[in-house]
């Protein structure tokens, strides 16, 4: 058994407020940090601090490895005391990083069309998926559309990077920008025009959004993988703290760990209530 995993120490090289309450943090990591797959996350903690006590899971938003330089970027919204403390980190602050963790999205060959659906901070892993496809030879010419929604214009963050990667359609709950309504409704309008056999859908966002998406896709023969969120303690599968209800082969409820069997699940396997 190779003992190759450990908590790595990283240096914050930037931590910028990109929109009110939304931050983009870049962390310089040791070379040993493995290249994350799309949909994977890290557990982030502030070194030497007892508050927040537990690490916080954040999706990989972007990643670079150039010679010895390894940089992982995360995009996060301040919602509680952990993210609040993160937002105070400055250039040179030391953080502890565990990862990359969790099951990634399945990456398909170039024949497929890719649909990305992001709600709120779901834009973070979706951007990394798009970047991953675009960075690969096969994916560079794939047909790819991103549907992204937020409560309001001000919460629509990091659109620029996505817009460079693929066609991006926007919705806001309050109509302040793009389609007035839920992102799933925006997607639903386009759904009939898709060649669903040739399409793969990736989605990340609040549970109600994913549930609405599941309803749209019900009985449709389309591949859809979604990334779920759940409170986490360890992030590595030992505490059973982060489970979510999944259908087993016979359709019975079974708890699966979001940090280990997830965060990416087939949308058809999820039990919504």
């Amino acid at each position, binding site marked *: 058994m190779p003992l*190759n995993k*450990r*908590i790595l120490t990283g240096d914050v090289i930037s931590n910028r407020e990109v929109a009110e309450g939304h931050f983009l943090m870049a962390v310089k990591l040791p070379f040993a940090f493995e290249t994350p797959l799309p949909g994977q996350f890290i557990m982030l903690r502030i070194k030497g601090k007892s508050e927040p006590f537990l690490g916080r899971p954040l999706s990989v938003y972007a990643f670079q490895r150039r010679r010895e330089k390894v940089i992982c970027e995360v995009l996060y919204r301040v919602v509680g005391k952990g993210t609040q403390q993160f937002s105070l980190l400055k250039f040179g602050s030391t953080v502890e990083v565990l990862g990359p963790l969790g099951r990634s999205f399945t990456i398909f060959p170039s024949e497929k069309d890719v649909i990305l659906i992001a709600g709120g901070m779901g834009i973070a892993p979706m951007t990394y998926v798009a970047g991953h496809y675009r960075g690969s030879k096969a994916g560079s010419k794939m047909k790819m559309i991103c549907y992204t929604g937020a409560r309001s214009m001000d919460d629509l963050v990091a659109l620029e990077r996505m817009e460079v990667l693929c066609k991006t359609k926007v919705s806001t709950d309050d109509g302040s920008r793009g389609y007035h309504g839920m992102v799933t409704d925006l997607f639903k309008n386009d759904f009939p025009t898709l060649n669903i056999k040739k399409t793969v859908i990736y989605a990340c966002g609040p549970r109600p959004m994913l549930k609405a998406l599941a309803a749209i896709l019900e009985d449709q023969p389309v591949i859809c993988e979604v990334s779920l969120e*759940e*409170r*986490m303690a360890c992030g590595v599968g*030992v505490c059973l703290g*982060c*489970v979510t209800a999944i259908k087993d082969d016979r359709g019975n409820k079974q708890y699966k760990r979001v940090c280990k069997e997830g965060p990416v699940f087939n949308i058809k396997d999820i039990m919504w209530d």
Partner: protein
Amino acid sequence: MVHLRDIKTDVKIGSLTLRNPVMPASGTFGYGEEFAEYVDYNLLGAIVVKGLSLEPRAGNPPPRIIETASGMLNAIGMENIGVQAFIKDKLPFLRQFRCAVIANIYGETVEEYCKVAEVLSGAEGVHALEVNISCPNVEKGGVAFGTDPAMVHEVTGKVKSSTNLPVIVKLSPNVTDITGIAVSAQDAGADAISLINTMTGMSVDIISRTSNLANLTGGLSGPAIKPIALRMVWEVYNKVNIPVIGIGGITTPEDAVEFMIAGASAVQIGTANLINPLATMDVLEGILTYLEVQDIADLRDLVGSLKLERPEE
């Protein structure tokens, strides 16, 4: 000055000898698979696996955890794959390591405890049983058994007659008098006492006005409870003559040494693993350094060495 390599760190628990006093606490190390890439199990005193029941248990609905000040509440609800699947699917993997394997067991009835104990006694590679009579997150069994001395006596005695493995009884801190409970366990034949399990606690979301845990209450663990655990270890150490395994908030080697001075022959590290998968290794290394620097050649000389008289300043 003692040399690191000459320091005696072995710990006897009934017929079992552990190479050193450091092990993970049940429920914070899974069945041992996930951390094998982080921790060299050959260096641990033992591995303690997630609590096992006779049949698989689904556990409680999410959310199951919430952070608190210097701690966390959990209400996993004894989710586990069941003792048979453990033996078939997990034990073979653990057998390859030199460290002892301690199976934490749980039942809804005394009979279930005994049944689980029996099944595990027949399995190759299980070296001791830790009887969890202190889980606060289940409706039946668990803590109900751990708060009444008579019940503790019954469960311990019956489990003891169901197995020839050393039996460690893991106590609940949610009691008025921990020593009475510990003495009951000892009288019924326990080979060691583990303490403490989690303290029952609660956390409320003030916007939705619901509990932050689907199960309403959960078990508090982490540094927050360390002072309580330490006091209970000291109290029990002074009342029993079987080894005490100290548990509760241990995060650093200094924490572990505090427990040993208060009477713990060995220590378990729980919540700290969730923050730092290498916590057990870090604690072990630090204990050894402490023993070397303090010139203590045998760990046993540290155990219970608390001085009651304060030195003149």
